């Protein structure tokens, strides 16, 4: 028996280890420490949180490697980092740095409007965003080891993440009710490989963990996503744009662990100070949306 690295089983395995946890966006070593102390299962190393990317505009790219290394050295938990959609060289650089998970993310400005990264050749696992089941299965076919809802990052508004999670969950449920011979038509309609549609039909779930992201700002938001079927939660701007990040971080960690226990949720939601301010997504212009990036 030989020794193998970078297998699909190892990639999905790490995603499984992150279930029931919170992955927090951080922009420096100090924030990374706060996240780890609060009980985050991983941190996402960034130069700017999505709310600031949205405000400042310009081209958003992979973080400076120096920043990523600073964060990797500060904590013992896994460190993720984002690359632009389709920018496989940014991904090669992050893999070289030793990042544990790569997020091919619509929060950054896409580098390729037609192609996502072929994620199979990498030893490091990838997470990708999705708004519906077809998109999720296309990313999995390209090698993603974890799917997250896109939501609408940097808004502090959970409405889009809810929409995407509900859509994916109801599409999964519907597929389980189909007859075998109906799956090819479904695969064609979804724009997804038949074998993955078959997997969903047989197992009633995605072949990789399914997490929530995009607009989660409070413990209640996090628990809502878990009750809707998310297996973990990414919190971007929601922690370090709140008035008391330590408290908010800790409360969201506990909310994900006890998402089905209203008594705990009521207790930890008290006295958290102000959550991030938030934006009304329905009043945003189409070109301001991040979720429409990628397909």
């Amino acid at each position, binding site marked *: 028996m*030989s020794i193998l690295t*970078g297998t699909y*089983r*190892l990639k999905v395995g790490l995603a499984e*280890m992150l279930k029931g946890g919170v992955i927090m966006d951080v922009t420096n070593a100090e924030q990374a420490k706060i996240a780890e102390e609060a009980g985050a299962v991983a941190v996402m190393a960034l130069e700017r949180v999505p709310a600031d990317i949205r405000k400042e505009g310009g081209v958003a790219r992979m973080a400076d490697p120096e920043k990523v290394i600073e964060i990797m050295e500060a904590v013992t938990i*896994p460190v993720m980092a984002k690359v632009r959609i389709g920018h496989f060289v940014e991904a090669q650089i992050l893999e070289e740095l030793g990042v544990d998970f790569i997020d091919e993310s619509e929060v950054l400005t896409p580098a390729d409007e037609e192609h996502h990264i072929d994620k199979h050749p990498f030893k490091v696992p990838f997470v990708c965003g999705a708004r519906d089941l077809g998109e999720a299965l296309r990313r999995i076919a390209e090698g993603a080891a974890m799917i997250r809802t896109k939501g609408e990052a940097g808004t502090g508004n959970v409405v889009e993440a809810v929409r995407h999670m509900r859509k994916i969950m109801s599409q999964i449920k519907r597929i389980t009710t189909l007859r075998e011979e109906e799956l090819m038509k479904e695969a064609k309609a979804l724009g997804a490989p038949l074998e993955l549609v078959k997997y969903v039909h047989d197992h009633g779930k995605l072949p990789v963990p399914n997490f929530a992201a995009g607009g989660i700002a409070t413990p209640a938001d996090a628990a809502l996503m878990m009750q809707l079927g998310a297996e973990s939660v990414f919190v971007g701007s929601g922690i370090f744009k709140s008035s008391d990040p330590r408290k908010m971080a800790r409360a969201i960690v506990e909310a994900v662990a006890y998402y089905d226990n209203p008594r705990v949720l009521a207790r930890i939601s008290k006295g958290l100070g102000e959550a991030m301010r938030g934006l009304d997504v329905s009043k945003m212009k189409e070109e301001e949306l991040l979720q429409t990036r990628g397909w």
Partner: protein
Amino acid sequence: MRIGILAIQGDMDLHHRKLRMIGISPLLVKTEEELKRVDGLVLPGGESTTISKILERYGLRESLKKRIEEGMPVLATCAGIIILAKKFDKDEPEVKSLGLLDVKLQRNAYGRQRESFEGPVRLKINDVEKTITGIFIRAPKIIEVGKSVEELGWYESDPVLVRQGNILAMTFHPELVDEDNSIHEFFVKMVEEKGGRNV
């Protein structure tokens, strides 16, 4: 007999699936009341920092420690062995372990995710020897083993599966491997021998 899985954070779904494969329907344990109802407990893989913090904040740390000291069988994988370990190679301020298993661990000893690997693990359980695939994900390494600890599995020359009385602990993830159930089966026997009631 009722086997529980500590379901605070981690790969509890995989242990759940594995136990169902061998005819056990496990209970997910998140509270003291649930802990009281089980005869044996799985501590899954996950993030040891997260799990140990929630155990502490939700008053589960002491009750779990007491149950294990009283003899409740536990199966611990990866983060689970970190939660149980007595010693570490260096200060680990973010992990408050229970200090029950007499081993010294080095966390993330093989490197980062890029270095996570699948490799042969040689098992010797009840004098039966076999080799299975060990899945090591950002795994710790056992660098010292106390006198009361028996080695049951090795990767190269490192002990990776150990037993100390009612504790069965390993640095890899048998719950991720479909081809072999021997470790979970052995654990179920430990619970049965301990007089786990058949429910």
